[in-house]
């Protein structure tokens, strides 16, 4: 997933090359094609973020679909002050917190594990590295996990992350520093195993 493809950039194959704000304006006016274009433009990033936060594709798809439904419902009140993705990621993050809260009350489903059977040695090694990273990120506290995912995988800086989370920039900064330090420890432990 590319870190450069974010914000209101026009993506080839979008609705007439319209930016996100324009698509939202048309969605509010009842243009379903514009809304479909908006969903297609951002679905991969929304799914990836939800998956990394929740650890399950089925839950990520559920959250992703619900996030876009919320976008549709609020399209009429949408004001293009910041990037569209800032608002979208905030909705996704909130839905993921809600999901995790529900799981904390009921027995949480186990994270999915990919089967490495029948793969060549280098592919198995890549899988193991991926699993190690996944375990390390999953072991972070919720806030640290969110800032790491938004920073490393969504390519956002600490000010943008502050806009999404509603935390202060300095709080995000210290969260990010602690998260990277913790991951450094965890990943070096994994390597030494």
């Amino acid at each position, binding site marked *: *997933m590319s870190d450069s493809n974010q914000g209101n950039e026009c993506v080839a194959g979008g609705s007439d090359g319209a930016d996100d704000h324009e698509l939202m304006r048309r969605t509010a006016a*009842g243009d379903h094609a514009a809304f479909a274009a908006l*969903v297609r433009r951002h679905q991969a990033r*929304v*799914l990836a973020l939800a998956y990394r936060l929740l650890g399950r594709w089925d839950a990520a*798809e559920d959250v992703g679909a619900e996030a876009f439904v919320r976008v549709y419902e609020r399209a009429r009140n949408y004001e293009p002050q910041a990037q569209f993705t800032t608002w979208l990621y905030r909705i996704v993050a909130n839905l993921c917190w809600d999901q995790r809260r529900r799981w904390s009350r009921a027995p949480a489903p186990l994270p999915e594990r990919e089967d490495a059977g029948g793969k060549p040695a280098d592919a198995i090694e890549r899988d193991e590295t991926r699993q190690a*990273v996944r375990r390390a990120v999953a072991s972070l506290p919720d806030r640290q996990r969110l800032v790491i995912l938004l920073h490393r995988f969504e390519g956002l800086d600490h000010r943008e992350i502050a806009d999404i989370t509603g935390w202060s920039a300095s709080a995000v900064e210290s969260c990010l520093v602690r998260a990277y330090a913790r991951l*450094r420890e965890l990943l070096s432990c994994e390597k030494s195993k």
Partner: protein
Amino acid sequence: MRHLQEIELIALASGRAADDAAQAHLEACEPCRRRFDAVRRTYDALGAWTAEPAAGELWPAVQRRLLHRPAFAERSGRGRVIRLLRVAAAIVIGVGLGHGAGRLWSPARTASSPPATDVGEALALYALENPSPTGLVMILGDDPGVGNAEGVP
């Protein structure tokens, strides 16, 4: 000489810091370079976690959910039609009920209700229609010699 802060090293590792001074410091300062290498190793290691969505398209799932939401029906024009149909149905039901009630109630009302306007008149009419052995007609009659109990020897 000010060493680079951890957040600056993270920004440099992610390639989002366009600060020439920080870059220059990094080249000149061995301790900062070692710290930077550690941050970059962590940053690069995280890149191993690729996430390829199992479901390519979210749109069908979004559409399915929207069909059950009022906002979708409203914006798609279906809401207006549904509202009109509801109003029309309410009018038809109201008129039908009114008509049915009218037919059911009006014959009974004419049969049982006296056209009288006060209770005394109504009782008199009732007594005239239904002669009573108890002398109710006499009691209500105008002639005191006939109707008054005191006139009876």
